[in-house]
């Protein structure tokens, strides 16, 4: 058995070992995330198709131009804050996974708490932004923002914005719940008893995926 693997090229597909060399649950998490990527991809592509099938579109610099608590025209400032919150919470999640490799329980707990706080901060920002846009008169089926050239816009701008950022926000919410469960399991020594922190890695994959989707959503709605 061992002699075949010691030869020049490792034969991953000839049996006896995992061709992917990842744990079952982690592989399945990857496949779930791939299917979720297709769901988000379908949403974003339908947004793109509708946008290509429409004359003109509102300029995000004119739509997203306010910051809670500060008066004045501040394009993209608030969404910059949201983006950095999510990137930093992704970094603390990587650090939690890293501490898990070192079997450092208190490190995992510390970074998981920071990740959860980041997720909650992002959700709070999104709630503020939705409330603000609702005040401006935007909602599903209602769009007060004219096209970039001042011509009549369609309600699809608001429809897609609220549907897709809402779906992403729901993913952030589930990610926060998953991370809270991971934190409880960590504090109850579940992973110490198992001898590994692989579950943190799976939660981490989900959390990074949420950050990854935000990279696309943020670019498609706020920048281009």
């Amino acid at each position, binding site marked *: 058995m061992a002699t075949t693997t010691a030869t020049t090229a490792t034969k*991953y597909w000839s049996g006896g070992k*995992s*061709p*992917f*060399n*990842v*744990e079952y649950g982690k*592989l399945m998490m*990857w496949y779930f995330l*791939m299917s979720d990527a297709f769901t988000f991809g379908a949403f974003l*592509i*339908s947004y*793109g*198709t*509708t946008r*290509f*099938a*429409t*004359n003109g579109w509102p300029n995000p*610099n004119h739509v997203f131009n306010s910051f*809670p*608590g500060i*008066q004045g025209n501040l*394009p*993209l400032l608030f969404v910059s804050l949201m*983006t*950095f919150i999510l*990137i*930093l919470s*992704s*970094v603390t999640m*990587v*650090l939690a996974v*890293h501490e898990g*490799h070192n079997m450092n329980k208190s490190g995992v707990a510390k970074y998981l708490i920071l990740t959860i706080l980041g997720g909650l901060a992002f959700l709070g920002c999104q709630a503020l932004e939705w*409330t*603000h846009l*609702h*005040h*401006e*008169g935007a909602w599903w089926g209602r769009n*007060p923002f*004219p*096209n970039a050239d*001042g*011509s*009549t816009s369609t309600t699809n701008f608001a429809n897609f914005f609220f549907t897709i950022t809402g779906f992403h926000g729901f993913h952030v919410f589930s990610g926060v719940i998953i991370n809270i469960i991971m934190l409880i399991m960590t504090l109850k020594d579940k992973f110490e008893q198992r*001898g*590994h922190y*692989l579950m943190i*890695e799976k939660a*981490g994959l989900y959390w*990074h995926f949420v*950050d*990854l989707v935000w*990279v*696309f959503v943020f*670019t498609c709605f706020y*920048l*281009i």
Partner: protein
Amino acid sequence: MEQITTAAIHHDKNVGGGRKEIFRVTIILSVLTIIELALGFSMYYITNVLTIHFIKGVIIILMLAKAFYIVGYFMHLKHELKNMIMTIVVPLLLFVWFILAFLTDGSSFNNLKNRYDGYYKEHMSQPMQKKEETKEEPEKKGTAD
């Protein structure tokens, strides 16, 4: 049995660069985001359509670079076996076809509407009245309705 295989995978895992790599990727992602935001903001002042299309193209390339760093380093895919990378990346190549096909279809539909639907073209080119231009200042705070 289950415990043994899990432990074996855990031990011979290629962990990657550790904290140093995490720090480096964080810096790269932050810099890319700042460049993206600066480019997005620059379109506030630019009116030339070709320049805007060029900037949007650059932003999309930066977005793909960010996606690469998140998937490759944070999600650790770059340090996995090639078999593992291929089983995830190859199906996602379908997106290339989806995007090309659907966006082309959308733009063709728009051309047909503009050519044959007089009402659509007329209606869409009307200037839109801004409803609450003056109401905006006092209602700035995002508090509950």
